[in-house]
């Protein structure tokens, strides 16, 4: 059986990579993809811990607590889907207005010089 540390290590690698992407990338699409990676890192951690705390004494009987981690994963997948849909819609709208989606060039909400 693969030890849980490996899963967590992979999860951390994914999360930090996603975070790095979010902080450094200038293209909005890339940032969105990085966010998705971070979410999936969290999913991986949930699933890993669900496996660790799975009740192994009664393999043939299931209780509600056996699927707690799954519930979170499903919610996160739902949220990620919604987020992606909204994010893409926003990007589309931004692209129509500004002709690009480079976030460093879009700062009209910034306080103008007085």
């Amino acid at each position: 059986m693969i030890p849980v540390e490996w899963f967590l290590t992979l999860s951390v690698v994914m999360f930090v990579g996603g975070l790095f992407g979010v902080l450094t990338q200038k293209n909005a699409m890339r940032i969105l993809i990085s966010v998705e990676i971070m979410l999936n890192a969290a999913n991986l951690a949930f699933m890993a811990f669900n496996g660790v705390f799975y009740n192994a004494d009664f393999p043939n009987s299931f209780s509600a607590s056996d699927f707690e981690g799954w519930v979170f994963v499903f919610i996160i997948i739902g949220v990620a889907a919604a987020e992606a849909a909204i994010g893409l819609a926003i990007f589309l709208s931004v692209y129509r207005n500004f002709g690009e989606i480079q976030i460093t060039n879009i700062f009209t909400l910034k306080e103008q010089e007085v």
Partner: protein
Amino acid sequence: MVVEEGIQVIEDKFLINSAILVILIPFLTGIFLLFLRGLEIRNKTKFSERLTGSIGVAGLLGSLINATIIIFTYFNKYDAKTQRVIGDTPFVSSAHGTFKWGISLDPLSVIMMFLLAFIASVIHFYATEYMHGDTAYTRFFGTLNFFTGAMFGFVLASNLFMAFVFWELLGVSSYMLIGYYWPKASAASAAKKAFLYNKIGDVSFLVGIAYIWQITLKAHHPTLDYHELTNLISNGTISINQLWFPGLLLFGGAIGKSAQLPLFGWLPEAMEGPTPVSALLHSSTMVKAGLFLLSRIYFTFVTVGGHYEAFIPEGDAALTATLITWLGVLTALCGALIALTATDIKKVLAFSTISQLGYIGMAMGTGQIHVGFYHLVSHATFKSLLFLCAGAVIHSVHSQEMKDMGGLKKYMPYTYWTMLIGLLGLVGFPFITNGFYSKDALLVAIKNSDIPLAGLAFTIALITAGITAFYSSKLFILTFLGTPRYDKDHVHPHKTGIRMRIALIILAIAVVIESVWWAVGSIGGLASEKINKSFWNFEYRLGDLIGIHGAPFALIDTIPSILAVILGISLAFGMYFYQIPFLISLKEGGFIIKLENIIANRFGFDKLIYVLAMGPGMWVGSKFRRFDEEVIDGFIINTVIKDGSLKLADYSNKLDQDGIDGVVNGLGDITSELGYNLRKVQTGQTSQYARWMMFGLALLLSIMTLLYFQTFTIK
């Protein structure tokens, strides 16, 4: 000493309410009319004379009806000698005592009230025609009703406090009436003069009231009620030796109001008012108020003996009575002498009023209150008639000077006859007039009194009677007899108007009734004791009711006055009607002319008062003025108040700007600065925000981790 023993105080709601109506009806109609006048001025319109005149007369008629009810009920239902109807309510209470507000119905007030209601009603009726066409018709009736109401209040008042309040109301409304034609400078100054002269008396009156209050307070029975004061005297709680000085002060008030020497100067000037006002002023209101006051407070200056004989007290206490009597005698003489020289018909009557008031005051001073009151009633009736007649004459020839009249008998027969009746009363024509009997009673009273130099006083009073006959005849001859002297091209004497004529006739009838009444009482009293003790003998009956008896009427006493009157009349007729050369040469003698000048200057009393007022008065005034300018204006106003408040304002300005504004502005500045600097945080770079978010999240997580370790692991 016991006079009021057995006097019973009755509570009769009906009579008291009627008496309140007597006061209130003229008062309220007066105020209502003045309110209408206000509307007139605001809307620049004029209500019809018929409306306002009717309201004015109706007010007085209401009083007259109530007064009639009261006089009949009171004298029929109650024994006026021992029973008084008094209704009092507390007005101002204090720990020491209570000022009351109430009505007292006793013989004097009831008779006076009825007389006033009657005469005032007739005068009001007369005025509706006399004042016809006047621009301020409404104001006239408003003030006149107010004035009469004030007099009713004074007459019916049960205590000195209430009397004083109405006394002052009388003063102020007489001011308004005398100054009725205020655009005329002389009228305005006459009103001012009347008010100021009266004010001197008022101050004296007020001090007298305070004095009496103090005396009764010390005697542990604080009261200002006439009735209770009489009780206090009769049961010996306070004595006349304490009361004579306050009595003198109260008499000071009467001097002002009743135009006694030396404050008589305002009364002739008061002729500036319309004639109905003069008639009311001189007959039963203003000038009679002072004498009525004397008859109310007689216990302060005379002692009334057990056998109903009023006598002047011994020692210092005699001073007040002596002063009242002698001032009365001198006023009578001076008034009559000045009336001789007056050329204005109304002024003659005015001075004759002063003279008659002196007579009445003289009788009251000797303690013969009922005699004074007797003449007061006669005088009120014929003097109001005389003034109304004079008004009719003036209305007709448009002049007040007697030199512009003459021969009016042909044009004004009614006025001629009524004036004749009035003048006969004033003269005291033997046996057929009311004036004769009341004046005779006065002369007897002064003759029998125990004041110092009573004989001299009697002689002066007798001479005055002669002079009265002389100037009255002169007035009559110059006005009605002889040849017309008015400007025939412009003046066309007309008959007196119908309403004025009715008023004259009513008053003339009243004089005739009084004459008959007095004559039956006096002459009949000689014949039968029954008549003498009945109500026919007004003098005796009144004295009986208020507990004073004088000498009875006797034919022998009348002889001097008859002689004086006949002498006066014949001299006047000889001089002015038949124009006997010898008498005319007498009149035009150098000495007489000099004397006339002195008299026409009113013996210098006015000048004296003027000098007194101008000299010390102006000196005191100038000192006050300097005090005002230098101390009050200079120091207090300029230095303390002006500079002080400027400085204070300066300081508070500083406090406001530096302190309060500073704090408020400072807070605003800080907030604004903070906001200005904080907005630079917003760069618009999304990745930067994300970085800050990560940083914040990391920080939060590390703190939570640390806390987690602290709470769970270490424990």
